[in-house]
């Protein structure tokens, strides 16, 4: 039955190197500093939420893509993570609408 077993992990996926990891960390760090900075600058307060949500989504994506290897891994993992993630986001947005936090 050995003929059925296929190469298992990491086939065809070049994992990033330690340098990439450190670079990603640097980016995450910078975004975090910007986020906190934006929080303290009154000029941004009119549109704080969109800026911060965008930055946060960027960080989220970086960690998921690189540290969790979703960028390099089998597409199956992307599917089984993204679908629930989208449902969760949709649920949050729908509830915010229903509670009048957002309005069209």
């Amino acid at each position, binding site marked *: 039955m050995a003929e059925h077993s296929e190469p*298992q*992990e990491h086939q065809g996926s070049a994992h990033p190197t330690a340098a990439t990891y450190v670079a990603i960390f640097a980016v995450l*760090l910078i975004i975090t500093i910007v986020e906190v900075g934006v929080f303290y600058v009154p000029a941004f307060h009119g549109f704080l939420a969109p800026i911060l949500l965008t930055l946060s989504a960027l960080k989220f994506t970086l960690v998921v893509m690189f540290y969790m290897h979703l960028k390099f891994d089998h597409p199956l993992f992307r599917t089984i993570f993204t679908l629930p993630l989208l449902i969760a986001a949709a*649920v*949050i947005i729908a509830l915010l609408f229903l509670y009048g936090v957002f309005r069209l």
Partner: protein
Amino acid sequence: MSHAAAAHYTSTGLDSRKIAFWTFIGSECLLFGSLIATYLVYEGRSVSGPTTHEILNIPLTSVSTFDLLLSSLMMVLALAAVQRGDRLWARVWLAATALLGAIFLGFQAFEFTHFVHEGLGFTTNLFGSTFFTLTGFHGGHVFVGVVWLLTLLVRSFQGKLGPEKAMNVEIAGLYWHFVDVVWIVIFTVVYLIQTTPLPAS
């Protein structure tokens, strides 16, 4: 004749544990999604204080956010070390990850006790109930992660964490990074975007 080969035949060529774990993470998205949604729809509805402006400590939480981000870096380095069979650095990075996780929990414990001293308990108001439940659930996940990492560290010292066991570390890493990204969201929507109207003073 290797029955391991037969038993380990998989249709996708992927490790079953990893598929199951990603499914679990997908499920966790809905868990934290519901908690975050509740926090957000209730924000600003507390009928008594203290609430966000009066109590959240942004500089302190920025440091603990940095701490958790750094732990994620340690985690990927730990996985890389285990994969290449580097026992020494595997231990170093695993220990560092666990330590940073423990430090995060320390920050949280400090924050919680501070809040209680300031008059914000679990049942004080809607903000207290939603905030402690959301961050408490996250902290619980961090705690489980630290225990998991320490278990891996012990296995490493027992000599049972060679490259063939890299999947064990990879899955622990997925968990750890997911807990990190949840914190990225919480830090933004709870700490930085405060929609509670300022008290009229």
